[in-house]
């Protein structure tokens, strides 16, 4: 029994070794364009924001780390929006009422769009909740963050500042 346990533990540990993508990595390629309905009822298209640095954040009402991250994204938005920076919060709930209920208590001023069919999440190959993609002024994806843990917002800040300065 002990030997079996030992074997399983080693095997599992080895599994853990196999490349799991790091939380922050650089990416390249054009950010896939999309048009989604926003909170205000109007459609928003990300290519309309060309010329600004954009942080696209995929989030869900049922995701704890997403909720933790929201106020910090709001701070980031308020701080840098005058310098040509915006955040696009893409909500992946299939039922937007849950997202709206959440937003009622959490005041965010950056645009929120609803990806209820998850078509955009698929295009962006979203592999974790939340997922944050930072796009430069030319519409190129530059940084990808999968998941959220306290402290990531400092990385977002550094990357956003770097892209603003370019």
């Amino acid at each position, binding site marked *: 029994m002990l030997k079996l346990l030992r074997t399983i533990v080693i095997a*599992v540990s080895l599994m853990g070794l196999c490349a799991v*993508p790091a939380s922050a990595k650089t990416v390249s390629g054009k950010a896939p364009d999309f048009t989604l309905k926003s909170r205000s009822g109007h459609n928003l298209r990300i290519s309309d924001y060309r010329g600004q640095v954009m942080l696209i954040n995929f989030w869900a009402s049922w995701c704890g780390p997403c909720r933790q991250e929201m106020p910090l994204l709001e701070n980031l938005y308020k701080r840098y929006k005058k310098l040509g920076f915006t955040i696009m919060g893409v909500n992946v709930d299939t039922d937007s009422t849950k997202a709206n209920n959440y937003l009622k208590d959490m005041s965010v001023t950056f645009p929120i769009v609803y990806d209820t069919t998850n078509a955009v999440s698929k295009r962006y190959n979203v592999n974790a909740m939340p997922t944050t993609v930072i796009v430069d002024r030319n519409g190129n994806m530059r940084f990808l963050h999968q998941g959220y843990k306290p402290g990531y917002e400092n990385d977002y800040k550094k990357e956003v500042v770097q892209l603003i300065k370019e």
Partner: protein
Amino acid sequence: MGQAVVVAVIKSMCNKLLSGIILCSIILLGLAQAAQATVLPEERADVMYHSYDGGGVTVSGPSILVRKNASTNTSVYYNYYIDHISSASLDVLTGGSPYTEHRTEQSGGIDYLHGKTTTSLSYTTSVENDYKSGTLNFNLSQDFFGDLSTLTLGYTHGKDLVSRRGLSYDLSEISRQNYRVGFSQILSKNMVVGLNWETITDDATELRDNTGTLSGVTLNNPYRAYSYYDSTTGQRGFAPEKYPNTHTSNAFAINGSYYLPFRAALHGKVKFYQDSWGITATTYQLNYTYPLASWIFDFRTRWYSQSKADFYSDLFARQDEYTFMARDRELATFQSTSIGVTASWDFAKNGWGWVDKGSLNVSFDHMEFDYKDYRNALVGGTPGTEPLYGYGADIYQLYVSIWY
């Protein structure tokens, strides 16, 4: 490739040391690049009042749990639990007089999250005036396959000191070891299943008293007696139980949860048990969880059936008929059925100060025990013809939970 060499070296180290099991997993997991993670358990505090009333026994008391993140990667918890016991059960009345007792249990533990792995360590003590126990638990949980699968491993080591009320020395020392493996798989957007296996071994050492005499107590309850037909009186005679000093058991459970087409869930569990004392048991459980506005209702039913231990008998033919003899009804052939309901009311849904949300919960279960080979010896008459025993129990739980 360099990684593979390091792994091979550590593997050979692991094969040598028993404690290497724990050491190895921590080292190997430390090598993992993963900065991605699953999540720690939620921060919360719960205060509960529990009450059991059945078969002449009442047990009630509080249970208080507090859990908090100590850092972004660690969560700590503390649980304080009390059983205040008033027992006038059939076993107690057959052998002696009712008693009251107080059991205090305290637990503390830490969960550490690294990558997709959660490592947990906890320690529990249980103290009564005639029974002391200490237990160390270790658990490892790993998510993989896109977080659709979870593998858990666990090991528990415990030590119990058994005595009798009024004695200044211990009668028996029990060493316990548990080995657990679990695998959970998400099958679809609406369904998850799990498999769990646990092997438990107990090893008792019979202790001596001040005069050097062996206590006669190993894994048995020191207050329980077996019963035999006393031919001189034509009545039941009683003598202290004699148990083996080892016990190994295996349990295997399959459980599943299914999200219905409307917002509600079904949970099922089937468990098979067998042990080295000849006992086999099966458990079936079904729960239906139904939310309604700010409420969540749980309806549940449980059916349990066990067959007796090899050395159990309600009435032995004579004293010392066998080496091992027991009449503890926990080892008898019986069935128990229960139904229950929990009503939870969510409050502070939008937060209140530092509280994110809270819930108030009330729970009631009714259990019926039906013994097939344990008789009510208080009734009197020809030994072995007394009515088979059965009783009902009512269980209440009232608790408040807050998340922060």
